[in-house]
């Protein structure tokens, strides 16, 4: 028995392939949208993964340091390091800011960390790690900086000594790692004009600048320009220690809020990017529905376009089953071509997006199954239409 579908496709090969290509691009857009959504969620988690901390200690009753501002003393780690089960502690400070490089400003998330402690970049793609205690930086490659570039943060110049990859904040801003002390300074240091104005304001205040008490003013000014705060303290625990128990101990006795890495992921994904993610996911659903509808219409109209041929087939006594098989096979073929073209296109253009696009294998499989199901459903409609055709139309039309 001859395969009607193959013959029919061979007959209209060009239009069949072009239809498949068009469908493919549509599926590609849908896959990319799914990738944008996944990428957004992944962006929120990537820092957590890289930092690889078991417990995050932040200011009491805050969702810090990303979802809310948080500030803890930088000597808190001494108390935490003494807790049972704590293997490593690390102070970190995060601030999102514009840094300037060769006159152009670039939005980055500056992360201050202590060398050889949790909070630094996990791997490098070029250069070397930070070796000096000040004024060196490791940048995400997405910033466009190169090893040896000098970037300006507040009043100091930092030399980029290393590059890393996929280190972004939950907003997708590339990260710039600098030594903790520099980050503390950058975070709390005011600009020079503000400092001078503040000094004048203090000097005019009789409470701190009383005649006969020299030195009080200097002391107050010194306090105002120094900072011993960080945004969070990261803990790594010894194997076998329960992170939940440690964070409960810290919350109860140290009077700070402590999150396990699971809590932190929950905060980042469910709270920080919740609205944006919902927006994207709703759009993704609409796009998927629209794509499915368009696929169905295309297959339906393709079949309707063949009314005359089907009528002739019926006239010469072709069985209904054979006609139905032809339509189903053609529809599934379109789906397969479309899916692969779409996957190809999405993989090709995904790296060009400014924010991370994560094409998950699971999503691809789901899209493949969905495409085939939609194609099959659409072909059912088409078959119903085809079987209703009166063979007389072959002659009459």
């Amino acid at each position, binding site marked *: 028995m001859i395969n009607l579908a193959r013959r029919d496709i061979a007959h209209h090969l060009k239009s069949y392939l072009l239809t498949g290509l068009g469908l493919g691009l549509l599926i590609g857009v849908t896959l990319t949208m799914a990738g944008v959504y996944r990428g957004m969620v992944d962006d929120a988690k990537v820092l957590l993964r890289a930092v690889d901390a078991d417990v995050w200690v932040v200011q009491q009753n805050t969702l810090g340091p990303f979802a809310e501002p948080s500030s803890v003393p930088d000597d808190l780690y001494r108390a935490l390091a003494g807790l049972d089960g704590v293997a490593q502690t690390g102070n970190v400070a995060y601030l999102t800011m514009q840094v300037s490089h060769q006159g152009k400003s670039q939005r980055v998330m500056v992360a201050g960390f202590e*060398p050889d402690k949790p909070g630094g970049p996990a791997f490098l793609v070029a250069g*070397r790690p930070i*070796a000096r205690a000040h004024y060196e930086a490791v940048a995400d490659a997405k910033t466009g900086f*190169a090893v040896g570039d000098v970037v300006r943060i507040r009043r100091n*110049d930092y030399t980029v000594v290393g590059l890393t*990859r996929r280190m972004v904040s939950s907003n997708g801003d590339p990260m710039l790692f600098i030594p903790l002390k520099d980050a503390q300074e950058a975070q709390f240091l005011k600009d020079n004009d503000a400092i001078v104005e503040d000094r004048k304001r203090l000097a005019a205040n009789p409470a701190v600048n009383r005649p006969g008490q*020299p030195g009080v003013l200097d002391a107050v000014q010194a306090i105002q320009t120094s900072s*011993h705060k960080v945004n969070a303290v990261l803990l790594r625990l010894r*194997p076998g220690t329960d992170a939940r128990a440690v964070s409960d101990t810290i919350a109860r006795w140290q009077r700070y809020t402590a999150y396990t890495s699971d809590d932190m992921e929950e905060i980042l994904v469910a709270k920080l990017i919740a609205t944006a993610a919902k927006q994207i996911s709703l759009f993704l659903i609409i796009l998927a529905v629209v794509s499915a509808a368009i696929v169905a219409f295309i297959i339906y109209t393709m079949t309707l376009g063949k009314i005359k041929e089907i009528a002739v087939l019926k006239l010469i006594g072709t069985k209904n089953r054979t006609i139905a098989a032809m339509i189903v096979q053609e529809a599934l073929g379109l789906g397969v071509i479309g899916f692969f073209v779409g996957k190809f296109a999405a*993989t090709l253009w995904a790296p060009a997006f400014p924010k991370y696009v994560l094409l998950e294998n699971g999503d691809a499989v789901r899209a493949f199954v969905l495409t085939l199901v939609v194609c099959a459903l659409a072909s059912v409609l088409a078959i119903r239409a085809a079987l209703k055709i009166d063979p007389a139309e072959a002659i009459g039309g």
Partner: protein
Amino acid sequence: MNLSAVSKISKRSLFLTAGALAFIAAFVWLLTTRGPLASVGVETAVVSRADLLPKVFGIGTVEAQHSYSVGPIQAGRVLRVIVDQGDRVQAGQLLAEIDPVDLRQRADAAASAAARARQAAQAAQAQVVEAESRARMAQANRERYQALYRQNFVAKEMADSRSHEASAADAALSAARANAIGAQREISRADAELQGIDQLHNSLKLLSPIDGVVTAREAEPGTTVVAGQAVLRLVDPARLWVRARVDQARAEGVVVGQAADIVLRSAPGAALPGKVVRIELQSDAVTEERIVNVAFDPAPAQLYLGELAEVSIRLPGARDVLTVPRAALAQHNGQTGVWRAIDGRARFQPVQPGMQTTGQVQIVSGLNAGDRIIAYSAKQLDAGVRVREQRLMPQ
């Protein structure tokens, strides 16, 4: 006709097959290089022998080794300030004066008191002379009456009376002498008071304790200053150094005498030679930094106090040791080591790291010279991940 149709069809199916194959090839290529099945791109480096010259980095400010605050020892009003900021001064030079107010009058009073004490002493001396004369007279009378009594010319009562007069005159003499000594003491006291006022007067003149430079003029004539408040600040320009703060975690190995490079913020391109001259015993417990004083060697002609300076202290190095790039050192499951690409898969090799420089780290054990290790990777590596060597960053 029939034949050409067949060839047409076979040609078309040939094109079709070629196109399909090309598409599949491109698809597979894309998935394995950029898609989810791609292996992790890595750059490798070779374990090699090299000389290591580690440095310790700190930042600090240019400060004077000794800073002098010149001010009055008691509260007063500034009368005049002779020198200004930047002036070079000699040791002992008059810098400023505090208003003496009533000190001259007090000195006059003290001088009068001293003169009066001298006159009082003269009077006391004259009284001594008079008392001596009386005592001699009384003594003579007593002896005369004693003799008369022994010959029974006078009553015993008369002789006793003369004897009593003589004793009383002696006592009066002693009192007069004591008075005279007291008057001398009074002279010393009045003189000392006068001298004290003179010295107080001298202390109102603020003199330079050193040959140096005035760095601050903190009070102007007419200002009232309290005891101990600085009117002028001086430093010795020949003894300037950088008070550098070095992270305690990296401060090990820094000792006095090590050479250092000092880079001033005003001249970021030029490193000045320096030397560690003192490591302060008391570290900063809050910032967890050790304080290292690095002197300029030799001192540049002009320095500005308070200027930010970066200091790189050169530690003793190691010659001909096994080294790997710093970027290669990684942590995995709580162990320090390096990643190696073995049969296209990443394997973790624990090592014992030693001395570190900015770019290199010494390998004490765990690797041999010539071993290839992974220096850079496009993703966080995990044991068993497929890796492929490639350039990660465009040159």
